[in-house]
């Protein structure tokens, strides 16, 4: 039951966040129990995930309803915008941690172990003769996981770059459609974006399968494998999320939720998609290419 606060809409009472916390608790607590080998772990995770999905439907459902009812004025819209921007910034910093790790192992720890700079004594004392070359032998002095092959940048990764870049174009094209009031353009553009996202993901899946089964490149292939899979894996996870969000937006577009003036949800997802896109460029350059 909403009542407007002056102009600014302040919702009164909500049970969704608490339900979300319970869901998170079951999900993460369950995951922890799974990791320590407790049988109820996976059950708890399933319950947690179910609760979270219920929560997302409930929470977003409410917000969509309110939005459709015209409860949100421009100022509320701006709050959402600030919120989404800073959320994306926090995601950028999350990836920064992993990129930082990548630069660290490439520029510092691997060279040190190989005897460069201050690593001279380390190398001479502990790993005489060891030379760990990035990227081909970057699984450390213990040769963790054994010899592995690389995924060349100019195969699937380059194709995926192309795919994500064009998906950035299609989503912008859809946005133009939305602003022109051209529903067909909007829906077509979104549809293409979703399709590109799914294609990207399936390519990445193929690549992972190839890496694991034919190249012996795994998460356990020393720091090369660690940084490779953690960076591309978290990115893939974000693409998955982005794709799901795009699907929701596509459905809402088909249902005619957005007007040429009022479509923050669309823009938020588009921003997110562009963010995922830019992260991929970083990955393509620093993980695959140079």
């Amino acid at each position, binding site marked *: 039951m909403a009542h407007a606060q002056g102009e600014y809409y302040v919702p009164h009472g909500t049970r969704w966040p*608490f339900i979300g916390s319970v869901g998170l608790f079951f999900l993460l607590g369950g995951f922890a129990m799974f990791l320590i080998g407790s049988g109820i772990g996976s059950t708890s995770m399933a319950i947690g995930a179910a609760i979270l999905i219920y929560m997302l439907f409930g929470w977003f459902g409410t917000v969509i309803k309110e939005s459709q009812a015209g409860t949100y004025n421009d100022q509320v819209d701006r709050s959402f915008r600030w919120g989404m921007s800073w959320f994306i910034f926090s995601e950028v910093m999350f990836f920064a941690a992993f990129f930082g790790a990548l630069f660290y192992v490439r520029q*510092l720890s691997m060279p040190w172990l190989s005897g460069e700079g201050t690593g001279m004594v380390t190398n001479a004392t502990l790993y005489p003769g060891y030379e760990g070359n990035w990227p081909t032998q970057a699984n450390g002095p213990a040769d963790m996981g054994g010899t592995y092959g690389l995924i060349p940048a100019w195969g699937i990764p380059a194709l995926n770059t192309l795919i994500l870049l064009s998906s950035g174009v299609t989503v912008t094209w859809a946005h133009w459609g939305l602003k022109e009031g051209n529903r067909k353009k909007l829906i077509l553009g979104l549809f293409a974006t979703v399709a590109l996202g799914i294609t990207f993901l399936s390519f990445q899946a193929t690549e992972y399968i190839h890496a694991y089964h034919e190249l012996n490149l795994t998460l356990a292939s020393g720091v090369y494998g660690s940084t490779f899979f953690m960076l591309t894996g978290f990115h893939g996870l974000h693409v998955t999320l982005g794709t799901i969000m795009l699907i929701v937006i596509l459905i809402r577009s088909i249902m005619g939720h957005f007007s040429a003036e009022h479509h923050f949800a669309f823009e938020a997802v588009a921003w997110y998609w562009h963010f995922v896109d830019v992260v991929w460029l970083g990955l393509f350059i620093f993980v695959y290419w140079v």
Partner: protein
Amino acid sequence: MSAVTTHDDAHHEEHPSGIMRWITTTNHKDIGTLYLWFSFAMFFVGGTMALIIRTELFMPGLQVVDPQFFNSMTTLHGLIMVFGAVMPAAVGLANWMIPIMIGAPDMALPRMNNWSFWILPFAGFMLVVTLFLPGGAPAGGWTMYPPLTLQTGDAFPFLIFSVHLLGMSSIMGSINIIATILNLRAPGMTLMKMPLFVWTWLITAFLLVAVMPVLAGAVTMMLTDKYFGTAFFTAAGGGDPVMFQHIFWFFGHPEVYIIVLPAFGVLSQIVPVFARKPLFGYSSMVYATASIAFLSFIVWAHHMYTVGMPLAGQLYFMYATVLISVPTGVKVFNWTATMWRGSMTFETPMLFAIGSIVLFTLGGFTGLMLGVAPADFQYHDSYFVVAHFHYTLVTGAVIGIMGGVYLWLPKWTGRMYDEKLGKIHFWLTMIGFNLTFFPQHFLGLAGMPRRIPDYALQFTDWNMMSSVGSYIFGFAQLILVYVVIKCVRGEGEKATNEVWEGAEGLEWTLPSPPPYHSFTTPPEVK
């Protein structure tokens, strides 16, 4: 007082009562209250652990706890105090005061506000419950360095996920604060007119959004190192245990300013009120805060002088570190200049503010000493460091925040607190605190390492003093509980709107306590 009735009416009209009110609330004051109580409870949990530590350290020899459990106490004490007590307290103050100070109807994203709080109890539970798991609670220090922390038993994934949850909560809380400050200021409330508390929180929130995800990344890497075969922190696989420290401190150093900046904001609110004189150098305060925040991103490795960094790294981090003294000094000088030629009175909030400024400055001085890299070879991981960071954390942050609690308690509850008890609380806190932590400087300089359950005989006397002090300090805090409960229960003199003679700002124009919805129409500022 009509205000009180409005307040009550608001409840009866439209809000669930009892526990559901607190679970479903989207009101910034309710959520602020929740944060403050949660933090208070955690302060006692973390404090009890500190008392266990101090009890074991009262005498040489092992008397009360097993060394492993001792390490768990140290670890949990650090984590709980930082993430459970101080940060939520600061967010609680932000929730209560920022909308009122800038003339906003509420926080910008009220539902998310509820979520940021309600993640906390679950995260806290996940952390504390590790005490009962096989292998015991985490015992690798609050800094969670691998490989030691990788030796944690079943508690390990719970520790990691608890940190994730705490991080999510902080990030959402901060996003909300930023959105509120940037978007919900009343007409005329320009950025450079905002109360300093709002400013310091804006900058703190920015720091939080920037570094909490980095911590999340660091602990995630540790999780995969333990369970999924990655080698981020294992030399054998090309990684480096020290890399964790770099990532951790990239978070950790800004974190200490995250803890102290909101308290600095509180001090900047208190001093002008009781000096009856505007804050000296408002704009330089803002710039100093921003400089501190900026510098805090580029000094992290001063926690790691002994890991064997290349010389150039050591020197760079030393220079950058000592530089922070300059903007921090500007703040101290401005507070002093605000007092200068004022018309001062010394009610409890002012006492706490002065105590906080003076003792924080001492903590800052020891920080400067630690920042001098060659000397840090002697200080590092000794009790000198413990003394340093309690002088900054406890007096800078906790005592500063307590000053804020005394300042605003009449506003929140509509009742004046018991001034006499407040003063007793203050003096016992000062005596207890200094008795606890001043001797720790001596211990550290004389060579006592930190994180040890037992020590050589020449450290006995100072440790005994410290332990005695900790009991005085700890039990003195029960006075605060009593004072707060008295106000909440509506005992004591009624507070006026202005509460304090020298008080200026939007929050003092509202009734005490303020109505459930503070500004139904935004006030016009100047």
